[in-house]
């Protein structure tokens, strides 16, 4: 997908419209144009990759190739998890793509339970691709729809800056506990994808954050490094991760410190950069 990026013009228009607090902040609104444009490129790249990977994944599901479908499940999802704060702005799509069985009274049996986790349930809990065809078609249609909607989306600076915090809140809420990918136990893939997505935003903003509050930037970097160091212990060949069940209790506890500190620090990032 090609995103039209008339950076300066669109960027300024968007900043004007979307409230950049000024006065006290050492960051001028215009300083945010470049990082936000870069972030749009990142998002476009991820959503393109998502569509492509979902295509291959759903094809394997429909072909009845259980092993291949299982192998492609986690690497497909990471593209969604990296840009979740953008993707979940479309709540109808977020629900049909990423809902979990918990949200339905009838759990897995509910006919409205669709998307990645419904297919995950088939592939891992039922160990079968039976009856997953229509669900696979729907998932591909949904992510394709997501791609086209993102194309027309304006990204307010507050949404981008706040997106880093949103991703870490996701981790703190359900990734640490291993509630996300309960049938496949591939939670650590999602965990890492959320971290990547947050770190991407923080890196793009780094020159500004360092200028506004160098200590905050140092702490962010330190805590990302701590989280990544623990996750790396569980990485497997080819960007993959071990099962969530392999995560030791000690490491799970150790992850909570830097994750919670990141959540606290990132909650101040909008204030530090003077965006609403």
């Amino acid at each position, binding site marked *: 997908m090609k995103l039209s990026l008339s950076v300066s013009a669109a960027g300024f228009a968007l900043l004007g419209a979307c409230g950049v607090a000024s006065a006290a902040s050492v960051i001028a609104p215009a300083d945010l144009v470049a990082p936000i444009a870069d972030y749009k490129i990142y998002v476009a790249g991820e959503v393109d990759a998502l569509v492509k990977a979902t295509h291959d994944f759903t094809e394997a599901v429909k072909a009845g190739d259980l092993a291949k479908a299982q192998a492609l499940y986690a690497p497909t999802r990471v593209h969604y998890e990296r840009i979740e704060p953008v993707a979940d702005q479309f709540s109808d799509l977020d629900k049909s793509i990423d809902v979990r069985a918990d949200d339905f009274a009838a759990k897995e049996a509910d006919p409205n339970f669709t998307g990645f986790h419904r297919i995950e349930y088939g592939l891992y809990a039922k160990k079968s691709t039976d009856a997953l065809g229509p669900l696979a078609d729907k998932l591909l249609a949904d992510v394709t729809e997501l791609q086209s909607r993102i194309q027309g989306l304006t990204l307010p600076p507050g949404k981008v800056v706040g997106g880093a915090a949103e991703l870490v809140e996701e981790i703190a809420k359900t990734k640490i506990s291993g509630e996300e990918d309960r049938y496949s136990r591939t939670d650590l893939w999602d965990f890492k994808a959320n971290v990547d997505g947050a770190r991407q935003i923080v890196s793009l903003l780094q020159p500004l954050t360092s200028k506004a*509050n160098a200590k905050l930037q140092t702490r962010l970097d330190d805590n990302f490094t701590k989280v990544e160091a623990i996750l790396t212990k569980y990485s497997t060949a080819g960007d993959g991760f071990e099962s969530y069940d392999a995560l030791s209790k000690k490491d799970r*506890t150790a992850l*909570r*410190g830097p994750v919670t*500190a990141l*959540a*606290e620090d990132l*909650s*101040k990032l909008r*204030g530090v950069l003077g965006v609403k």
Partner: protein
Amino acid sequence: MSEHDNRSGCPFAFAAAKPSRRGLLTGLAAFGGLTIDGSLSADAAVRPHRPIDAAASGRHRLRFHGRHQAGVVTPQQAHGMVVAFDVLATSRDELQEMFKRLTERIRFLMHGGTPEAIDPKFPPPDSGIVGPVIQPDDLSITASVGASLFDGRFGLAARKPRQLVAMAGFPNDSLQEELCHGDLMLQICASGADTVIHALRDIIKTTPDQLAVRWMQDGFLPVEPLSFGHAPAQPTPRNLLGFKDGTANLRSTDPELMDRHVWVKPGSDEPRWAAGGTYQVVRIIRQFVERWDRTPLQEQEGIIGRDKATGAPLGRSREHDDPAYASDPKGLRIPLDAHIRLANPRTTETASSLLLRRGYNYSRSVTASGQLDMGLLFVCFQADLESGFLAVQRRLNGEPLEEYINPVGGGYFFVLPGVATDAGYLADGLLTPQT
């Protein structure tokens, strides 16, 4: 007026009519930790806040500083909570940082005050759930440490209190790992439930990379806000089995009794830093209340050993009458296996097992089978774990009451000695012992 008059041995201070200078300074120090730019570092600039006039609030400020921590001999507030944490520090220095920050927060929260108004562009540093002015509200926060703090991480093994171990299950227990143990335990008590939750949220927010909550249990007691001895004595509160609970407890207002049975004394065989502390036992004991309510009254009373309405020992007329076991050697009046008779046979040999109970009732939810999930959040303090709780619990093992109760969680902890001055912090004696 000084913050505290210690002649009575009273563990807490009345609210100062005017904020004391010391309280003010304490508050200032306490607020130094969190700056407006979100810095969590200890080098943050000191920001002023207004201390409050607690006398006007009708509730009181308990004293933080002293030889002992508050919350042990302090009369029980109406709401209590125990929260067990995993300590996330990876070095002795980080551990010290954590205890310093914790001390700073407890000082501030127990003192009360007005947090600095915050730039609306930032998340407010205070949850705001008790309003813009934080009242002391009889708040006590009591910090204790578990055996796991003395493992290999911080090189503290040699300084572990002699009897501190991870709690092992008793025959009637069904301990759930996710409700047991912890490196650090905070017992938070106040007159209002909102004050308790406010304090917990403050501590969680200000120690994000230092402490991780492991489990918690809150509880309540039917008591009035603390009266500091001026109001007539409170009636004994009842537990969820409908019996008065606390009748024969040690009198916590008697300092001599507390020194004998509760506080670790200087020169004991405990590590020197431990003097002024005490062993704390926490047990989450579920009660099968539906079944209890279907049990004949005489059986209930025989199981406990007391009259349900009055609280008197069976066969006696008033609550505080002596059970007079000597006149009932066969247990015709009070069964030999009644809870109170086993817990405290009142013989010279068992005098060493006296302990100070300070538990709360709790009510959680319903179980999978639709029965009420409620019970007793049992807490007790003693200078000697072995001759205190362990001896009593061993006598209770197999008691008829077991049919109606099931301990599911808790742990053993050691309450740190008090912080004597503004310069001190919790665990300073443990971390930097004088030689």
